């Protein structure tokens, strides 16, 4: 169990490989056993995905795209902190998280070119589809976790949301419901300080969103969202607590939205980009790589090679996206209902015609 203080089958000794170390991280000083290189590789992959997606948008190969540049540590650490059988509940800014669990990047990108073939089976990847309306997936995480628990499972649901979403009623209802039911859920808030143009000060009147946990009777913690080991430690502790019957937790990963809200956004209209430049110096991948260099786990050449490998893989995925044929009109109605009515458009093609029947 990653992040567990106990030494189990997933302990450093049993996992092997270069860079597998016991490290100390997290705000509560939890011992984390973590393959740092695996974490780093995942972060690099996310970065390459995100930059390639932005390029695809600039080239007109996909539509508007919500970049997550700088949030790689949070997403990679969260995925590492859970088991494969645990489910992840995603907002649009976590659109690459299913890729970390095996979804081809081009299928994830297909969503942003308006292609229904981007839809996938959640059970195949342990990921609910990205949720566009803010915070509305948080009650799903609670229901899924309760549903598994009622059926005797020990799985945990991990739900991502942002500082903007924290203001939505569904966030409140989900956290309250999870706590009342002691549902095994980890609420992971990526607090990047900006909801499109709305700063955190217009979103919340508390210093740390994790303070809200107290109101729900659950533990809350704030960690540096640019520090993958800190995120991993805090999330792993929350996951363990949920699995052991201790109920939900709220983890706030604090960071700064270095990029725009999405490719159609221009942050210079509403914020001082000189401030952004300061945060950009703190971005998580370069910082983590420096740490790994200092610890002797990486050489400069390893970094260069891994970046090239990731960029090349994403370039190839972009080509595969271009090669996907356009969807047909059948997809509009094909999967709406398991039992369509007699008047439903037939399997050949939906029809808009009317006439005497």
């Amino acid at each position, binding site marked *: 169990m990653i992040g567990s203080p106990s030494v189990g089958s997933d302990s450093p000794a049993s996992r092997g490989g270069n860079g597998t170390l016991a490290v100390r991280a997290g705000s509560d000083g939890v011992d984390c056993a973590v393959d740092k290189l695996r974490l780093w590789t995942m972060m690099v992959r996310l970065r390459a995905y995100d930059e390639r997606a932005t390029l695809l948008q600039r080239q007109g190969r996909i539509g508007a795209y919500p970049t997550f540049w700088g949030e790689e540590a949070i997403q990679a650490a969260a995925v590492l902190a859970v088991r494969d059988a645990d*489910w992840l509940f995603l907002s649009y800014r976590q659109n690459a998280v299913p890729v970390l669990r095996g979804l081809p990047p081009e299928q994830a990108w297909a969503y942003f070119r308006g292609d*229904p*073939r981007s*839809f*996938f*089976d*959640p*059970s*195949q990847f342990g990921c*609910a*589809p990205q*949720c*566009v*309306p803010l915070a*509305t*997936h*948080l*009650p*799903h*995480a*609670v*229901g*899924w*976790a*309760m*549903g*598994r628990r*009622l*059926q005797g499972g020990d799985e945990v*649901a991990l739900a991502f949301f942002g500082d903007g979403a924290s203001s939505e*009623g*569904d966030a409140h*209802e*989900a956290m*309250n*419901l999870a706590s*009342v*039911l002691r549902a095994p859920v980890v609420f992971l808030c990526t607090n990047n300080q900006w909801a499109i143009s709305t700063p955190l000060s217009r979103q919340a009147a508390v210093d740390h969103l994790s303070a809200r946990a107290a109101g729900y009777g659950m533990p809350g913690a704030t960690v540096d969202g640019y520090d993958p080991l800190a995120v991993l430690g805090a999330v792993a502790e929350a996951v363990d607590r949920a699995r052991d019957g201790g109920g939900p937790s709220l983890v706030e990963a604090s960071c700064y939205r270095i990029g725009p809200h999405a490719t159609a956004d221009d942050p210079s209209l509403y914020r001082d980009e000189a401030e952004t430049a300061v945060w950009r110096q703190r971005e998580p991948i370069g910082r983590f790589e420096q740490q790994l260099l200092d610890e002797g786990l990486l050489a400069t050449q390893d970094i260069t090679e891994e970046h090239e490998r990731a960029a090349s893989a994403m370039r190839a995925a972009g080509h595969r996206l271009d090669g996907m044929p356009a969807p047909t009109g059948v997809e509009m109605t*094909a*999967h*709406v*209902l*398991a*039992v369509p*009515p*007699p*008047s*439903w458009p037939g399997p050949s093609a939906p029809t808009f015609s*009317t*006439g*005497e*029947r």
Partner: protein
Amino acid sequence: MAGTICSDILDWRALTTSPARPGNPGPVTLVQAVDAALEAELAADPRVVLLGEDIGRMGGVFRATAGLHARFGENRVLDMPASEAGFVGAAVGMCLAGLRPVVELQFDSFSYPAFEQIVCHLARYRWRTAGATEMPAVLRIPYGGGTHAPELHSDSPEALFCHVPGLVVVTPSSPADAYSMLRWAIRHPDPVIFMEPKRLYRSTRGSLPADPDPEGLPRARVVRPGTDVTIVSYGPSLPTCLEVAEVLAGRGTSAEILDLRALWPLDETAVLTSVRRTRRCVVVHEAPRSCGVGAEVAALVAEHAMFSLDGPVVRVAGLDAPFPMFMLEDLYLPDPGRIVAAVDEALR
């Protein structure tokens, strides 16, 4: 009693109703039929769970879940906080986890806080996952007026749900239908909005059929055959229409009463078959007139049976106004006089 000032009124014990069981001798009420259907499906399928406010030890504000908490326990009958978006959303998640949640939304208007979950997720999840996931949830919604209820406890929001692709919307008008249609709804793989006519909860009685509705989707039913005019209705207005049919029969007009039972998808064949035969059509519901189910029926008839008609399609409906404070609700609800006048217009 100590502490009271005017009178001794602090005994809140209500008249209790015992749950019905299939095969019980004697007729049962509609709400007992709901209770019995829930009990039968809880017993038949361990994946069925009930969610709602006050549905546990209390048995629900209408007692539609009376006795179920005691028999099946708190892991099958789950009391929820006052959090409709939260627990309808949780029902979506439970479907993802392989359960079949049946949610009670305490009153019609209590569905509004959950509307985003219903529209954005319950109705779309199957589509959004290319058919890989099913949402076999049922939302039970007691609806309609005529019970002298407080504001926002008498709405008829069925057309809102009919307009959301991905939902099936049904409503019974008798205890037998409530029993068989609810059992069908719980077994159905698509999300079903199960509108329960709360005015009929205790005003109608009938026997319980042995089995769930065997049909793929509930079809409309001719509850009284006739030859001169088709009165299309559903749910709480059905008994009023039957009353009208008696009145009309007394003056020599033979009205056919068609109970839609399913509001989406409409049983187009049943409507068109009946209207082509009687050549007249009146639609009755208590929901607001504009863009209501009656408008859809009228459009259906206009599109596909126009040349069979000998008169205009006439709607009898609620006003395009908020459901009134209850001193005025008898004015608002379709009554026999308004329906007879509508039939006269259709026959003119």
